[in-house]
């Protein structure tokens, strides 16, 4: 039945043959699917009666190719009252049709109570009746459809952030409502000053304004009052302090003026000020929240549950935090080793590049020490956990990072420096105004207080408080659009001061994964088959890193059917002509004589043997990122000093340095050594940006003045870095540095504009010339000018 339904999928009607599920181009027009995964997915979709999906979707080709992912997520399920709950990050959601497919596919299960995808955050909230053991089956449906999922902890910190965002939005709504209404009434009062309005009407309008503005100020001002109080308690001043004082004084004075029947009340100034500031603050929080969320998701996709072999032979799935010393951890081929420990069973090859920077895989045997973060390239192994908690290499690195981050936490931003000066200067100016009017010009106390308060209102740092945040918002949303996530609030400013860029080798200058670099086949073989296409077709179904590299080499190759994987050895497939094998030298039975010719080659290899061909050798190595060389050249052209710092051996590092054109390099660095090298550079007055991805880079990332990390990096490196960038290239590094400089320029211009506005307005206020109308016009216009100036940053995008 399901097959008949599949045939109606629309891709068939296209002129070029495309996979009916993932829309990838097909080499063979007779085929309907590019791989088994797609075929299985399409069958599943049809079987659930959801083939409307294919009509609805608007997706870019190839994004939904299922790779299959076997995962036991029961460790992440919370169960209460017979209802299990699971929160997942879902990757691969392209449009509304995907949301619909995910929700419908899950809801088809009778036990599912709730399946709701949040498309903005890419999160799925899943609830079902029954135990955690159902998780695997439910999640299996999603992975079979081609979505990648990762467990997600609804962390308290995240909830606090969401609550704060909601609170700001509520304050913004209240302030907006009040500002609009009070401003309408104020316009009436202002035009009434011409003489057409009697005092009784004016008073009525003032009282109505007070009625609206005062509660609104109490609600909308809370975020500022709280922050100002916190700063005062800590013995500091910040921008929120003059804001709070200005708003409070404006409100108090206006009540007095209203009660005394005077013509000028500043309710509109107070509430409009809050409205403008809240807009800036809300946008700021949202932009930062989105960047952090994206970064979290990248990290979450890399976290995996740990499989533990219990003494009775059963396998239990646990979260990494709950693994204890002595536990035996199972590590399948291609998996990352989750703990520090000793190999208890099995022998394999592991890739330790994330830990040590060493690019070549190491052979390890029973009793060998392995570290968390290494990737198992060969056979499945069992690792006896040697250290947990404080004693792991991971914890040691975390300690180094903490020490470095403490130093960085002391960084004071330009805006803060201005704010520290600003509050005392403004309040002294207010006090001087009062004293001057009271004693020198012998004004009444009431008049003198009013002029002093006018000074405080007009200097209320509306534009100043917006000057830097608006630039941040514009810059970070522009970066976010390019897949660059700005994690720290001060990162942009620190990045703008950089003069030296330090690059890590493995995973940063290189892709950090094996790529096909050489094919060694004789001419007869090449005439008979296309070796890369053939091997790639065989490799499509495997998840082994080398098989994935092979598959990447010819992504459109048609997947072979009935391929059998022998873990740690290779793949074989029996066809009518004979058996094909792709795998290790031994597995393929390559003659010693032939193998000997390649003995000096240290690169990783795969062999392909089959009927009618002589053995083909594929060599893999960690290839340079495509744009590494031009980016390094561009960095140097902009005046940055570029250095290379690696844990790998000297000759490998030297070769790499020469290839990309870096003159200063240092090899054989330990994690601590990298951090020390950065400290030494900093001691010489250098502002260093570190770009790295490995576990061994994490302390250096934290120690640098600013740090960047690719999204392929280990999670601890991403945690340490200020900026996480996605994609295959290094160009984001250049782009981030450029934008940081531009943003800092605009921020400085904004500060000058804001201070210039104050320099003009303060004399007016001191002279007693500021009426509510003047205050409203001056304040709004200065805020708008600052915002408009910041928006220039977004516009530059179009030009570049």
């Amino acid at each position, binding site marked *: 039945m399901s097959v008949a339904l599949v045939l109606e999928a629309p891709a068939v009607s296209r002129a070029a043959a495309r996979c009916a599920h993932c829309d990838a181009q097909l080499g063979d027009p007779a085929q309907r699917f590019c791989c088994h995964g797609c075929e299985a997915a399409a069958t599943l979709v049809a079987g659930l009666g959801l083939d409307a999906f294919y009509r609805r979707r608007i997706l870019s080709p190839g994004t939904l190719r299922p790779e299959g992912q076997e995962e036991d997520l029961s460790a992440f399920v919370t169960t209460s009252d017979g209802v299990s709950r699971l929160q997942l990050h879902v990757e691969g959601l392209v449009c*509304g049709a995907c949301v619909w497919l995910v929700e419908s596919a899950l*809801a088809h299960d009778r036990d*599912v109570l709730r399946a709701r995808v949040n498309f*903005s*955050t890419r999160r799925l909230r899943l609830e079902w009746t029954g135990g955690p053991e159902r998780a695997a089956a439910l999640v299996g449906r999603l992975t079979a459809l081609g979505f990648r999922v990762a467990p997600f902890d609804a962390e308290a910190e995240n909830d606090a952030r969401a609550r704060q965002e*909601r609170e700001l939005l509520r304050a913004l*709504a209240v302030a907006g409502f009040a500002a609009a209404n009070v401003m*309408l*009434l104020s316009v009436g009062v202002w035009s009434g000053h011409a003489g057409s309005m009697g005092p009784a009407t004016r008073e009525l309008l003032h009282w109505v304004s007070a009625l609206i503005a005062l509660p609104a100020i109490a609600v909308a001002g809370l975020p500022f009052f709280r922050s100002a109080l916190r700063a005062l308690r800590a013995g500091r001043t910040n921008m929120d302090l003059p804001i709070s004082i200005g708003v409070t004084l404006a409100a108090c004075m206006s009540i007095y003026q209203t009660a005394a029947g005077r013509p000028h009340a500043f309710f509109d100034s107070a509430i409009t000020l809050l409205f403008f500031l809240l807009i800036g603050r809300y946008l700021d929080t949202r932009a930062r929240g989105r960047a952090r969320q994206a970064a979290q998701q990248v990290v979450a996709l890399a976290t995996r549950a740990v499989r533990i072999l219990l003494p009775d032979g059963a396998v239990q799935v646990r979260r990494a935090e709950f693994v204890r010393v002595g536990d035996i951890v199972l590590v399948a081929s291609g998996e990352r080793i989750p703990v520090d420990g000793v190999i208890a069973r099995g022998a394999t090859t592991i890739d330790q590049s994330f830990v040590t920077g060493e690019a070549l895989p190491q052979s390890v045997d029973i009793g060998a020490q392995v570290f968390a973060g290494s990737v198992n390239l060969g056979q499945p192994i069992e690792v006896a956990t040697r250290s947990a908690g404080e004693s792991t290499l991971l914890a040691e690195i975390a300690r180094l990072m903490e020490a470095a981050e403490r130093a960085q936490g002391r960084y004071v931003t330009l805006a803060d420096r201005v704010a520290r000066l600003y509050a005392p200067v403004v309040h002294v100016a207010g006090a001087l105004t009062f004293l001057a009017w009271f004693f020198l010009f012998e004004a009444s106390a009431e008049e003198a207080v009013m002029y002093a308060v006018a000074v405080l209102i007009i200097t209320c740092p509306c534009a100043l408080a917006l000057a830097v945040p608006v630039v941040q918002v514009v810059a970070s949303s522009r970066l976010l659009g390019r897949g660059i996530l700005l994690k720290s609030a001060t990162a942009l400013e620190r990045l703008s001061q950089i003069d030296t860029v330090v690059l890590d080798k493995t995973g940063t200058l290189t892709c950090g994964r094996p790529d096909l670099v050489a094919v060694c086949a004789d001419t007869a073989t090449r005439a008979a088959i296309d070796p890369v296409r053939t091997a790639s077709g065989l490799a499509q179904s495997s998840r082994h890193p080398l098989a994935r590299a092979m598959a990447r080499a010819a992504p459109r190759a048609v997947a072979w059917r009935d391929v059998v994987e022998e873990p740690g050895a290779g793949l074989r497939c029996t066809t009518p002509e004979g058996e094909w094998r792709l795998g290790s030298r031994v597995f393929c039975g390559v003659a010693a004589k032939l193998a000997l010719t390649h003995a000096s080659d240290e690169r990783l290899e795969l062999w392909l043997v089959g009927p009618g061909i002589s053995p083909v050798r594929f060599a893999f190595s960690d290839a340079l990122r495509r744009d590494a060389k031009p980016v390094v050249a561009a960095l140097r052209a902009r005046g940055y000093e570029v250095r290379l710092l690696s844990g790998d051996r000297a000759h490998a590092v030297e070769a790499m340095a020469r290839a990309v054109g870096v003159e200063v390099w240092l090899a054989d660095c330990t994690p601590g050594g990298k951090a020390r090298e950065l400290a030494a550079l900093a001691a010489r007055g250098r502002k260093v940006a570190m770009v790295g991805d490995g576990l061994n880079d994490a302390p250096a990332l934290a120690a640098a003045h600013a740090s960047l990390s690719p999204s392929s990096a280990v999670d601890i490196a991403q945690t340490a870095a200020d900026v996480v960038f996605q994609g295959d290239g290094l160009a984001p590094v250049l782009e981030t540095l450029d934008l940081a400089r531009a943003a800092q320029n605009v921020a400085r211009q904004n500060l000058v504009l804001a201070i210039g506005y104050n320099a003009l307005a303060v004399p007016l206020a001191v002279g007693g010339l500021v009426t509510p109308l003047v205050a409203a016009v001056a304040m709004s216009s200065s805020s708008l000018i600052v915002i408009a100036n910041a928006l220039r940053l977004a516009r530059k995008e179009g030009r570049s």
Partner: protein
Amino acid sequence: MNSLLILIPLAVLLGLLGLAAFLWALRSGQFEDLDGAAQRILLDGETPSLPATRRKT
């Protein structure tokens, strides 16, 4: 000027109604998935009967 006594409260009341509607929408979680809402509007109607996926918050 007596008209002001009716018009001002009326205007404020209307404004408050709008504010109340916004705050209600905020509280009921309608601002949590703006992108999703934009996409779902195209799909409604054909969704298979899923009493389970109805919002409960």
